[in-house]
């Protein structure tokens, strides 16, 4: 199941929901809000989702993962709203009989979610500026309220290469 959450994600509850006797491996990814990006001090993130389409596209991604990898279950949750540094923005959990497909599916899901699910992030900086992150480049668009420089501020991963899906590099 893919969910959009307006309240804090509870990883322990998400994990417990995936437990099953046939499962020998559990892999989870957590995307946290960090305090810096591109040389700028980040104080806050705001996430906004086109919720109906985010859920349907997220469900599609999870179904693809279940088709491509030998997994037992896949679950993902993405926050919307205002998040402080240290908050959990996205959680992906995968269970499988064995660890290799669990790792592979987890990586696939987070890469595809970041590329395809219609969610947008606005960064707020310590200098008072804020701006929408450009999903195509990872850099902030025009910012307001202060100097404008900088880039994305969550997991810092380099843009994913286009894979077998419609994922776009970021």
């Amino acid at each position, binding site marked *: 199941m893919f969910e959009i959450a307006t309240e804090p994600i509870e990883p322990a509850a998400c994990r417990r929901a995936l437990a099953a006797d046939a499962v020998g491996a559990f892999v989870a990814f957590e995307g946290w809000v960090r305090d810096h990006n591109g040389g700028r001090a980040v104080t806050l993130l705001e996430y906004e989702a086109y919720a109906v389409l985010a859920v349907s596209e997220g469900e599609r991604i999870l179904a693809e993962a279940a088709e491509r990898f030998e997994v037992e279950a896949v679950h993902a949750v993405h926050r919307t709203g205002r998040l402080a540094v240290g908050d959990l923005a996205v959680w992906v959990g995968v269970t499988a009989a064995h660890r290799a497909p669990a790792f592979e599916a987890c990586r696939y899901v987070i890469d595809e979610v970041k590329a395809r699910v219609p969610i947008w*992030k606005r960064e707020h900086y310590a200098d008072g500026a804020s701006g*929408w992150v450009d999903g195509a480049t990872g850099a902030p668009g025009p910012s307001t309220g202060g100097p404008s420089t900088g880039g994305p501020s969550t997991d810092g991963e380099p843009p994913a290469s286009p894979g077998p899906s419609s994922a776009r590099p970021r």
Partner: protein
Amino acid sequence: MDKRVDIHHFGPFRDARGCSDEAVSTKVATPRELYAELGLEAAFPLSGLRVAVNDAFAAWDALLADGDRVVFVAPSSGG
């Protein structure tokens, strides 16, 4: 013949347009033409964008119908 199209804007598009919702009466046939008609390409080049019609991703050259709901989807920056 004119058709009514309801456009909802999220995030950067909302900031650019200054509103969340627009109802337009238009003769254009496709989302691509609608995008051009709104003059958005200067601020947001079409390349890399997607479009949703009635809450599903659509082709830029899909035919619009009267009453359709359109969202221009900026590249995702979630995660």
